[in-house]
């Protein structure tokens, strides 16, 4: 029984990692006042770029660099639309999502054509942390993972410190709360927003590449499978605080893993119901949490100097 639970928790952590990366990045963008709904599209581009980079060069580090850069370009476009052109952020974000979906699929087809056997790259293997991985229960749950999960673990406190303990983090938050005031104090609102959105893109790229380079070792259209949307929900669930966002992403992964685990054990609950839970639960939680959530005051509001 204990092995069964360890298996499920470890699986839950793996399944929540892509959306965790993306959510930590999206949080930075939203903290600066830009709601980027295009996370899913950026993750797909990240997955594709990471896969193709690794496939061509044979080097996974270069692959990850590709995975981070591709979505950064997409994010820059998002910033251009929403910060410079001041378009409606919901519309711009949806356009970025659709662009990512179409572009990733198109580029994959152009590269490989129609094949009966999908091209693959070796996946990043799990890496035991010496000593820690032999702790009973906790060891196999937390310290028997691949390097990218450890990176995700590391980024949780780092994004917290970045947002709440550094000068630049303070600027980002001020711009997201009251851009006019920030502007008066000499903070370049547009520059901060561009930067935050682009950082968000890089994180989404990490999330996307996790699926392609760790989980599957291959790319397929729609490989992000809604994780970008889960990331957006996790940010709201986490009330724009990194440590709570982790919980949001983890709840999703855990429910998903439990649904799969219970099916293996054989239950009388219909599998459709189990598979619905990962989506039902966040909705239920959001419905309860939303009243208490405190979004950045200037979220999704374009800023124009001199306007009242």
């Amino acid at each position, binding site marked *: 029984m204990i*092995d*069964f639970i360890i*298996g*499920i928790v470890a*699986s839950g952590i*793996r*399944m929540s990692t*892509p959306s965790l990366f993306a959510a930590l990045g999206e949080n930075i963008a939203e903290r600066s006042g830009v709601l980027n709904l295009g996370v899913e599209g950026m993750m797909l581009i990240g997955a594709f770029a990471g896969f193709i980079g690794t496939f061509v060069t044979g080097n996974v580090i270069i692959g990850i660099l590709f995975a981070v850069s591709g979505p950064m370009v997409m994010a820059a476009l998002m910033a*251009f*639309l929403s910060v410079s*052109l*001041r*378009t409606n952020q919901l*519309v*711009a974000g*949806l*356009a*970025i*999502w*659709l*662009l990512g*979906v*179409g*572009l990733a*699929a*198109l580029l*994959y*087809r152009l590269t*490989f054509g*129609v*094949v*009966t*056997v*999908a091209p*693959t790259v070796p*996946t990043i*293997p799990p890496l035991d942390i010496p000593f820690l991985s032999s702790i009973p229960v906790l060891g196999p749950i937390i310290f028997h993972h691949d390097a990218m999960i450890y990176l995700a673990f590391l980024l949780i406190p780092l994004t917290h410190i970045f947002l709440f303990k550094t000068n630049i983090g303070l600027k980002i938050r001020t711009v997201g709360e009251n851009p006019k005031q920030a502007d008066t104090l000499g903070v370049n609102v547009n520059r901060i927003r561009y930067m935050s959105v682009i950082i968000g893109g890089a994180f989404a790229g990490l999330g996307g590449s996790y*699926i392609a380079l760790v*989980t*599957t*070792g*291959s790319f*397929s*259209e*729609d*490989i992000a*499978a809604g994780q970008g949307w889960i990331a957006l929900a996790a940010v709201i669930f986490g009330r724009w605080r990194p440590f709570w966002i982790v919980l949001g992403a983890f709840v999703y992964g855990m429910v*998903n*893993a439990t649904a*799969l*685990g219970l*099916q*293996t*054990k*054989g239950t009388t609950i219909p*599998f*459709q119901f189990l*598979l619905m839970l990962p989506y039902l639960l966040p909705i239920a939680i959001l419905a309860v949490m939303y009243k208490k959530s405190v979004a950045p005051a200037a979220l999704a509001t374009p800023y*124009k100097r001199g*306007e009242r």
Partner: protein
Amino acid sequence: MSKRSEVSRITGAVAGIMVAVILITGSSFSYPTLEGVWAQEEGTPLKVALLTDALFSDGGWGATAYNASQALKEKYGLELTTVENVAIPDIEPTLRDFADQGNDLIIAHGFEWGDPALRVGADYPDTKFVVFTGLTNGSNVASVFPMQQEGSYVLGALAAMMSKTGTIGFVGGQAYPNIVNIFEGYKQGARSINPDIKVLGQYIDTFTDPARGKEAGVSLINNGADFLFHVADLSGQGVIQAAKEKGIYALGVVADQHNLAPDTVLTSFVLDMEKAFDGAIKMVQNGNFSGQLYKPGLETAKGASGDGIVFIAPFHNLDSEVPADVKQRLNQIVQDIISGKIVVPERTEASS
């Protein structure tokens, strides 16, 4: 707010959406092949459409159908149109569109096309419809429902003979009747060898999510399975990946998936779609189309005589890993199924 900035905002948004829309439509209709090739003597080439909700880039179900249709286009000089990635609610309108365009034959690729084909078929008596893995038929609608349970029976027997843990697993994309049937065959085959074998199953509700497929596979392996069989298209690539990482064998489906993981995929059961589509085209060309439910079964290998379209792929580089007596027994099972000595009943409802 000035008028100019309003205009630029709208322009920006519209431009963004347009680029996205162009890319989306561009990608889902990447391979239209509309130029007609004139057939030898008949005068006009046969107008055929292959429609599916799957992706042609899936490395299995969709890709095999696409390649089969391309080969037949060459062979018969067809005027061929192919459409992939049709959303489930759009199946009926899509069928109607292509019937309107005067296609002689529409190959609807997937179980879920069966009922819509019947409805649309009633309105377009001059168009013939063939539903691959469908279960419906009418005067101008035929279905090909391969006896895939015969192929999976052989795989189940193989897994049972080679399993060390006495537990084997499967992962399905959806609990569609054709897929339930495949797993029932797998179970029966395994139990024919070892009545006490544990067969664990998972349905993951998606054909396009390899990440979920992989975690489903890991969960089965954690519960003792040392053979993983999948019928989950793209999600199944994740299942094979799980087997690869844990060092156990996987069994492929639809196409010979050996190249996906050469040391992991022991064998696959393959559907010879080219043979099935070829048969449909011949019927239309010869004017003897009959709206039946065709149930082709097992054959010994690709291109074997007879009307079977299901066969078991070779072991490739893993040939030496399979003991001689296992191979012998497998061959016997294949022979017995083809000769009718073993009958694998069709079961479209899951049993325990």
